[in-house]
């Protein structure tokens, strides 16, 4: 493989060495927050991120490897928001200043994500910015944990803090801390996370100082510029390898939680002369409910998809350099205040899905079937016999798509995150619930030459007299797509008891205030991944093996794969041959 022609101004050895050193600084900032954070969404699920950003443009220079992937793209907008504010208000930033905010229209994502941005000074000048983002446990609003599926304004989702100075010249502004704490149901958790983020920024600053003292300010700046140039050149070379032309794909959100009407995400990808245009014209207009996103979030989601497809391109702003965006201002992908954005995770998962599908039409060997495509945020809440309030909040998993190397992963995490989920034993020890099932879901993986991974079935029994349930999910109506001839995965199904029978939410995958009593059970059946390639190309022996292991039923083997397999997984080769011939 020939190297891409890039700038050769910098010693390539120094470049390789310093790339590692710089990434280690961001990684160490991640690790500091994970260890000291109070809330499990950061401590266990790693819903946070850290990096170094350009002094003038806010562009991502260096990003940690362990943080939440979607933040990698969003953080540069957060830093830019601080730079713009300073410019607009003619503020002089001083060493020791730290800004804090969660305004999603400027900095991307949703209100739960608090961003801390710290100008880093050398020789009296801003050398770069260090930033930290973390998902706080509760930031006010109508629903504990802030996943409010019926919000119609951001004010129902939580407090909204614009970029303000948490520190001025090294002095913490206790007034601001007091405002933040008084707006949360869990002020202790908030205070712990805030301190963790401050520590991470301090650590990053001291590590960066040491590195600059060792290697020189200008050398490191040149290295960071070269890393960006190298990522851009690499990205451009991959784009140039693809056939020029325009390709399109569309996918759907179930609804906005307010009106049961599907919302379209449309993408046209055009490739020309080493550049890629991502045009979202044709996407549904902004909606009343919380599945809108800001422009920054939309770009961040595209970045995540590109990094999944071109995984060896270094994580910095260079990735986006050969990319042009067309995001209609009236669409649900570019909203401003006060449109609700709390369910942004669902919308950006759909953006990643259309990116995979469109790529499958251009370069079938570089893509995969869509993953399960919903985070399924479930809250269970109530009061214990002694009157104490409890809230159990968790996300759930599903299948990954089939891919050119094999079947999709069973029960993986969402492409936008690297988060794990808590053990059911921890949940049972902490909350009055009992899981009655925690299992793979047969026949949920999309059929194909390479099958989509299986989703899961989670069934939970309530142990207290009264419990309220809240669900924020998607993929109840349009299933995760298969690619390159592969079939779709199974839909998301949520079931709760109602009047002696079973019911599903009127909004399919979103619901507030489901009232449950002791002994009643709810069940979540999550989607599998989409399949990859034509089912007729799947080896009948693999289908039989899937039946033997219970990933696929004999009925599905016959209907979806045209294979005749008995309940023990024994293949009838002759019958299969004849069935496949006529299929």
């Amino acid at each position, binding site marked *: 493989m020939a*190297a891409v022609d890039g700038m050769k101004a910098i010693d390539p050895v120094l470049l*390789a*060495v310093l790339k590692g050193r710089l990434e280690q600084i961001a990684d160490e900032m991640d690790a500091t927050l994970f260890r000291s954070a109070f809330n499990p969404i950061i*401590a*266990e699920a790693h819903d946070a991120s850290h990096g170094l950003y350009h002094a003038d443009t806010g562009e991502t220079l260096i990003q940690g490897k362990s943080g939440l992937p979607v933040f990698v793209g969003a953080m540069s907008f957060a830093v830019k928001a601080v730079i713009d504010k300073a410019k607009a208000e003619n503020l002089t930033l001083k060493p020791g200043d730290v800004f804090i905010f969660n305004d999603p229209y400027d900095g991307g994502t949703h209100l739960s994500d608090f961003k801390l941005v710290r100008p880093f000074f050398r020789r009296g000048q801003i050398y770069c910015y260090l930033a930290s983002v973390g998902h706080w446990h509760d930031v006010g609003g109508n629903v504990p944990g802030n996943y409010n599926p019926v919000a119609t304004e951001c004010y129902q989702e939580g407090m909204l803090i614009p970029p303000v100075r948490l520190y001025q010249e090294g002095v913490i502004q206790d007034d601001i801390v007091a405002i933040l704490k008084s707006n949360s149901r869990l002020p202790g958790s908030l205070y712990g996370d805030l301190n963790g983020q401050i520590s991470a920024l301090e650590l990053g600053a001291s590590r960066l100082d040491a590195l600059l003292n060792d290697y020189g300010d200008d050398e490191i700046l040149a290295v960071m510029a070269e890393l960006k140039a*190298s990522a851009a050149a*690499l990205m451009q070379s991959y784009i140039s390898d693809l056939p020029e032309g325009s390709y399109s794909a569309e996918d759907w959100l179930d609804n906005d939680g307010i009106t049961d009407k599907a919302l379209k995400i449309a993408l046209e990808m055009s490739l020309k002369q080493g550049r890629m245009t991502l045009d979202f014209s044709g996407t549904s207009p902004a909606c009343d409910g919380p599945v809108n996103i800001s422009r920054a979030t939309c770009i961040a989601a595209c970045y995540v998809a590109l990094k999944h497809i071109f995984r060896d391109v270094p994580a910095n702003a260079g990735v986006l350099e050969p990319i042009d965006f067309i995001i209609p201002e009236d669409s649900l992908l570019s909203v401003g205040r006060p449109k609700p954005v709390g369910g942004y995770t669902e919308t950006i998962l759909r953006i990643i899905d259309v990116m995979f599908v469109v790529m499958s039409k251009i370069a079938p060997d570089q893509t995969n079937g869509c993953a399960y495509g919903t985070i399924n945020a479930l809250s269970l809440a109530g009061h214990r016999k002694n009157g104490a309030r409890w809230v159990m909040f968790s996300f759930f998993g599903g299948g990954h798509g089939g891919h050119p190397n094999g*079947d999709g992963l069973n029960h993986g995490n969402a492409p936008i995150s690297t988060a794990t989920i808590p053990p*059911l034993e921890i949940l049972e020890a902490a909350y009055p619930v009992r899981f009655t099932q925690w*299992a793979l879901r047969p026949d949920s993986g999309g059929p194909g030459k390479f099958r989509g991974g299986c989703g899961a079935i989670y069934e939970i029994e309530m142990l207290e007299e009264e419990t309220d349930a809240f669900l924020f999910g998607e993929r109840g109506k349009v299933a995760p797509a298969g690619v390159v001839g592969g079939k779709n995965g199974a839909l998301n199904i949520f079931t709760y008891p109602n009047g002696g029978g079973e019911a599903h939410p009127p909004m399919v995958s979103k619901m507030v205030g489901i009232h449950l009593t002791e002994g009643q059970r709810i069940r979540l059946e999550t989607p599998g991944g989409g399949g990859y390639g034509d089912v007729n190309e799947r080896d009948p022996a693999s289908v039989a093996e899937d039946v033997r292991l219970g990933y696929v039923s004999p009925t599905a083997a016959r209907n979806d794969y045209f294979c005749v397999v008995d309940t023990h997984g024994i293949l009838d080769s002759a019958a299969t041959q004849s069935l496949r011939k006529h299929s």
Partner: protein
Amino acid sequence: MSERQIVIGADVGGTFTDLFFLNEVTGECATAKVPSVRANQSQGILSGIALGPAALADVSLLVHGTTVATNALLERKGARTGLITTAGFRDVIEMRRRDRPDTWGLWGMFDPVIPRDLRFEVNERVLADGTLHTPIDPGDVKAAAQKLLENGAASVCIFFINSYANQENERAAAAAVRSVWPNPHVTMASDILPEIREFERSSTASLNAYLQPPIGDYLELLETGLMEGGLDGNILIVQSNGGVMSVETARSYPVRTAYSGPAAGVIAGAHIGISAGYPNLITCDMGGTSFDVSLIANGESALAAQTSVDFGLVIRTPMIEITTIGAGGGSIAWVDRGGILQIGPESAGSDPGPVCYGLGNDRPTVTDANLVLGRINGEKPIGGALERLNMKAAKRALKNHVAAPLGMDVMTAAEAVIRVANSRMAGAIRLVSVERGHNPEAFVAMPFGGGGALHTGALIKEVGLSKALVPRYPGVTSALGCVIADMRFDRVHTINVLLDQLNLEDFTKEILVTISDGEARLRESHAIFEDQEHIIELDMLYVGQTHTVSVRLPVQAVDVETTLRSELILDTFEATYQDAYGRLLVGLPVRIMNLKIAVIGKRPKFDLSVLGPSSTASVDAAKTGEREIWVDGAWCTATVYQRLELPKNAIVPGPAILEQPDTTIFIDPDLEGNVDRFGNLVISRKTQ
């Protein structure tokens, strides 16, 4: 009995079997290195012993570090294993904690060690508070066991939800299984790990069951082979926690041997470092495919709670904390499409190995770069398996894959490969030192394994470590560790109780029973101990947190009944928390998650000075000549020494190459080496 004076440490690695012989009466030592026999590791041990100074009949104790378990897991060569579990939960080991192998890219795959059709469910349930919700029906369990046997299972794991809180159902099920199971390969999850978190517990227990038959067979072969060879003494096996256990215990808990060999190396490192006056050190083991580092502070190794052998293969049992990166001698150097020089993670391993081995690989490795730079002697490769190394082929590979794409000459390219490899290794050292709040200046690097000593000088400069200490026999460090390792039993039990609701009487009783169990096992081993030690620790946290801090209680078994009070536990927790995070969270209730007890039998150590240089050694005799080497962009002349011929207090100024049968040491031009009285080489910056 007086004739049985020899203790043997035997470390079996992928390529070599290393032995260390110690005469406990005379203090005499010897070493041997022979090729490993993969099909039957005991054969390698026997042929190594045949080269040694003693007959097997003279051996009182043989301590063994093994990689059989690790290899069986990595190559998926364990037994056909079944699982009997709670209805509704047979997929826990396959669903993991809902993760994926790589942050970027969604092409991950996972193959659980127990296939889904060998995972049977039975009706039973324990609640989180230990309440028996649904008792087991032994008939159901027997039927499941029979079905597993019919399906060819050779081993079985019993794992029930919440069994950490109440073992009753698991015990009853294990009894039912044993009544029909034809062999001893029955693993009960709460016996392996009575700790909360169902995936981690079931994964560890399943891997244990998967390993029982192959490890059992292996130990059988080993014992038979050694006994037929005349061994009448005892055999002990090194565990991942750095302690040893009896063969019987290893048969029941094979999962504890996963990092047996590397742990022995770290134990040896600690002993060598302490003896030489360096209780703060970082061991660096560079092999063919990986670089392993481990930090020892004040003579003590850090223990990690769990590790993943491979994606999804989680083992949760206390083990010496070893951080691994994919940068070894066989790691391949390449230039990516963005024009950045990369080392690894792909490796040529030992077969085909580096280009210079001439066994078919044509992509340059770290070893090839060291050869081209003159740091390795191409005419006398270590290990003895190859006649000579192919310099021309190594240069060609570097030219094609590194020099040409980067637009540089071959020598510059070779040096670039070493610098980037060094920076990756330095990153691993920083990770365990600087990132854990340790000041690197207080630490020395200790390279062992075949290749580490070529890179140490650069590492101390890059990370800011004070010195490097190269043990006298770096290639047999793990075998030496086997000889001195203590015997150790660890038990972790989740009790999950608020401190102010702790039943002190029951709690004290559990501590005493656990300790006396451990002591009984020490006695059963028939090994010699100088002393015994207990470590009583609690994993504690504020209510609402998920990460715990490990709190070591200042009590001993003899006085635990009189001294252990809730106030003492709280004070110790607060002191530990303050130390870790710099502040306390006043007013929040405190929870005890786990009780962790270690019972340690201290084995006799020996005086390492017996390994030291002979009194007749001299620097002049050690000098064997000169070699041209490439350093910092130019050729220079390095003096070459026979390392083992150097006398104590010898000073070796860089640039120098020190050769010995199991490794090559490179001293940079700005560094110098000093030989201490143990024969260790201490490398530091030149004094002038």
